[in-house]
């Protein structure tokens, strides 16, 4: 096969001259392109922050989130594991959990608030959630740091919860906001992920009631999101049509944070 690429054959002096001309032009253009690229990168990185991320990057992250949100499906599940795969889950975040007192007593928990458009705020108790069908699953709990642990969770599906406690006729909202009592820690969820069949309001872990450090008495387990969205010790659930804020989103993480 002969070289199909163009060739220039000229007397020696003219060839050198032509090469120098091409060289000058080529390196000048390359320098301009490099300077342009550095300039564009700097412009992005020095843009005003939107929740601790330069806003052009935040736009792309939000775009990614919307893209994946549209792909979330009740049939797209985190894999299930067997009991022998269960590992040790460290308690990685105590945000929003008050200190236990000197005797090791946990602060009181008087149920959680339920709010939403067209909904009279009510306080619900653990028994209200436990009156729903119970589900048990062994799934992977994925931390945004990169590690993951298989755990067994027992709880009620948030989809069942919504069906029961959202009054008939109330239109389903696009988002749901959950927070600890006092809203020291809070998460925002898209409704599709919240209504996913693996999303549980959980009260037991590996067959035992939740410990305080893991969010007793009731926490959110949502395997299609990173651990940061799996709110402990639920104090408030609010249906909303405005994208709620989120504790780690405000610290520069992706809002969607979906797996």
């Amino acid at each position, binding site marked *: 096969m002969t*070289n199909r*690429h163009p060739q*220039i*054959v*000229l007397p020696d002096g003219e060839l050198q001259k*032509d090469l120098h001309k091409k060289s000058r032009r080529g390196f000048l253009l390359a320098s301009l392109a490099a300077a342009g690229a550095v300039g564009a990168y700097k412009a992005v990185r020095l843009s005003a922050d939107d929740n601790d991320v330069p806003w052009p990057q935040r736009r792309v992250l939000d775009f990614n989130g919307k893209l994946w949100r549209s792909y979330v499906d009740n049939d797209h599940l985190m894999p299930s594991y067997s009991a022998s795969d269960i590992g040790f889950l460290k308690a990685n975040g105590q945000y929003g959990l008050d200190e236990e007192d000197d005797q090791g007593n946990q602060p009181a928990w008087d149920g959680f608030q339920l709010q939403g458009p067209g909904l009279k705020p009510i306080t619900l108790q653990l028994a209200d959630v436990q009156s729903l069908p119970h589900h048990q699953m062994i799934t992977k709990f994925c931390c945004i*740091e990169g590690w993951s642990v298989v755990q067994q969770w027992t709880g009620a599906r948030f989809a069942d919860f919504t069906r029961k406690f959202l009054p008939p006729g109330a239109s389903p909202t696009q988002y749901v906001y959950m927070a600890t009592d006092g809203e020291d820690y809070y998460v925002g969820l898209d409704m599709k992920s919240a209504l996913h069949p693996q999303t549980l309001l959980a009260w037991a872990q590996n067959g035992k009631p939740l410990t305080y450090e893991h969010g007793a008495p009731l926490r959110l387990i949502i395997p299609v999101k990173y651990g940061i969205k799996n709110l402990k010790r639920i104090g408030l659930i609010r249906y909303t049509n405005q994208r709620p804020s989120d504790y780690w989103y405000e610290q520069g993480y992706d809002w969607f944070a979906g797996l």
Partner: protein
Amino acid sequence: MPKLVLKHLLAIRWFHWVNFPILFLMIWSGLMIYWAYPIYHLGPIQLFPQWLFALAGLKFRLAEGMALHFVFMWIFIANGILYVGYTLISGEWRYLVPTQKTAWRDAWHVVLHDLHLRKEMPPQEKYNAAQQISYTGIIVMGLGSFVTGLAIYKPAQLFWLATLCGGYESARLIHFILTMGYIGFFAVHVGQVILAGWNNFRSMVIGWELVKEGEKS
């Protein structure tokens, strides 16, 4: 007579030079992410010890790393697709893909030649067999990074892909190994470019290479 040969087409030069800083940025931001859970060892040796992260200023930058990785991935992917598409349509792939049966043996002979253990180079066209295997392999690696990256990024939505990669942990490990592969490729590539000299390097910038009398173009 000496002549000028257009060795690298304009589009190929663009794809190459766009990829260089983007891949660097993907690795750099990837290390910010890896810092949060740096578990891989070679026997007793921790591959990225804390002092190395500290030295590079990569500690406590997980959120920043993710915000870079999941933005610039778009350019990395688009550039890769355009490059492969272009080489296929233009026919440039014929120079790049080792199609000859003797490719592996030839490549080994090239390595021996480069190590001064063998005198003559095997016959070649534009690229020798070692280059062909490297330049094709790096594209396969890029595809591997794309696939394993997706599997780590969305193991629930793309559960079948994560399964295909051997699970979440396995996908993460492959993604990491491929990244180490890029660093190895880079080291060899830059070394070879330095040894090949200015005329060769210049052709990757301006396209044209000076071919002296009697030299193969």
